């Protein structure tokens, strides 16, 4: 009796959460979106006096925006590629092979996460200073690589571990070579999760601000670094708004792809929850 009553009752708690979270989380972003398409928005008006795309043309005509976009994209591609090259074989080894010192090595990855990241970046930067890597492209690549390492190890390890071992053994029993087993059985099962990890590390690198600012600026200017200078020094509000909207596109793509990984709970477990 009580159960059927509960089922038909309107979920007021849920409605309250939904409304409050919508206001707190979606509303600020809507305001930014509106600013990006506002040509004139003076103080007391609730909505812009004039909408238009004038500031899109102006923002996209700026050389520094294109330069930063190119820097950001080439950095992200390079970092993601290197990270995948280094981490995926390691993740497979961690998930499958038994070798001495395996646990210790695994936790050495964790240690990187157990220190405040910015302090770590400063410590790395102090070393880069002696190596003359400050203000260079490769300096930024290296420092951003650190940020992706943990990510690219954790999620793929979980993916490889969840592959059904019996199917691999069955394939081996009918005479498949190890490489063939990996290609036809292991990879298709682990693939989507690994693709999500790669995507997340790409997006994470794209938005990485601290390392790029500390090591790269002012010689290497990525999109987020450009955005900081827009916030601090730019009088035209719309430039920042347009840049925000452009910047948010990769994140939105990631959001669509990453839903299954995060919803699956592997993600939270990866963080130790």
């Amino acid at each position: 009796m009580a159960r059927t009553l509960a089922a038909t009752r309107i979920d007021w708690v849920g409605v309250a959460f939904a409304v409050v979270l919508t206001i707190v989380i979606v509303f600020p972003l809507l305001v930014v979106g509106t600013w990006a398409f506002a040509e004139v928005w003076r103080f007391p008006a609730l909505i812009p006096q004039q909408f238009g795309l004038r500031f899109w043309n102006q923002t996209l005509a700026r050389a520094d925006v294109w330069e930063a976009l190119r820097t950001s994209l080439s950095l992200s591609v390079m970092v993601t590629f290197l990270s995948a090259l280094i981490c995926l074989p390691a993740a497979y080894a961690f998930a499958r092979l038994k070798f001495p010192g395996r646990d210790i090595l695994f936790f050495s990855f964790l240690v990187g996460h157990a220190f405040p990241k910015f302090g770590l970046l400063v410590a790395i930067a102090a070393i880069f200073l002696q190596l003359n890597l400050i203000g260079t492209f490769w300096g930024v690549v290296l420092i951003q690589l650190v940020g992706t390492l943990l990510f690219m190890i954790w999620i793929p390890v979980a993916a490889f571990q969840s592959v059904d071992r019996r199917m691999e053994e069955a394939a081996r029993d009918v005479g498949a070579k190890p490489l063939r087993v990996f290609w036809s059985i292991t990879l298709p099962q682990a693939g989507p999760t690994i693709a999500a990890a790669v995507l997340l590390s790409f997006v994470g690198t794209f938005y990485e601000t601290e390392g790029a600012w500390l090591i790269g600026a002012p010689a290497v200017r990525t999109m987020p670094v450009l955005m900081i200078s827009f916030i601090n020094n730019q009088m035209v509000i719309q430039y920042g708004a347009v840049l925000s909207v452009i910047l948010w596109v990769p994140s939105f793509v990631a959001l669509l792809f990453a839903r299954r990984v995060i919803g699956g709970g592997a993600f939270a477990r990866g963080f130790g929850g």
Partner: protein
Amino acid sequence: MPVVLVIWMVVWPIISAIVRTIWRPDASGAYGFNLDTYIFFFTDRYSLDNLSLTLWTTGICAILLLVICLPIALYLRFSAGRLPAYVQGLAIFPMFVPSIILSYAFIRVLGPNGMVDLILNAAGLPKIRTPYLTPWGPVIGLVWDNIPLTVLILLAGLGAVTNQSVEAARDVGAGPIRVFWDIILPRLGNSILVALSFTVLGLFSAFTLPYVLGPAAPEMMGPFMQRTFRDLYDPLNATTQAVIAFGFCLVFGLFYVRSVAKNRTP
């Protein structure tokens, strides 16, 4: 190969940072044990103000995050359907908003003449005292930014609470508060501590939000380190600050590693 990289990029910088701040040449050039930079940090009014601001922000954010995220996680755990799915989607959403865009949105909404001011003005109410460039600016931004991770960790922890145990407690007449206190909280303790560790670690290294939204002085440790390193060209003191930040986070870092080790032992 990845191990070498981790050692070179993580372990080595930490050791090098510690060694180089306590074992370095004095004025005459002879190497020796030297704690000057630490003595300077802990006697310098400004450095101490920055440290206490960071601790204050961390404390406030941790409390706010628990107060906000625990009810959301509890609600999500004990309900199903489309509305909870929507709530969960929203709670995780900030993870996909880069902090730099968040900073910009914050200024446009809560900054001077921002959206909140516009709405209050339209309703005939006085303007708010904007939290932009006050210590509350980073607090609001950081809480917003940390909601997804906290909710996810708490939710994962709530997975350990079985429906049977909750129903059994209800059947013997326990009220919601009693159920929460005696059944749920003991199982959730570990997750709360993990979430707390994350908040502390994240806040000590927060840079973008405090840098853009916070006051210029005193500032949080992130911007302080950055300014010491880049604007004052003083890597020695910046590294000292980093080591001090490591020290404060050590307990939480160790706890985090231990907790993951326990959950993950293959």
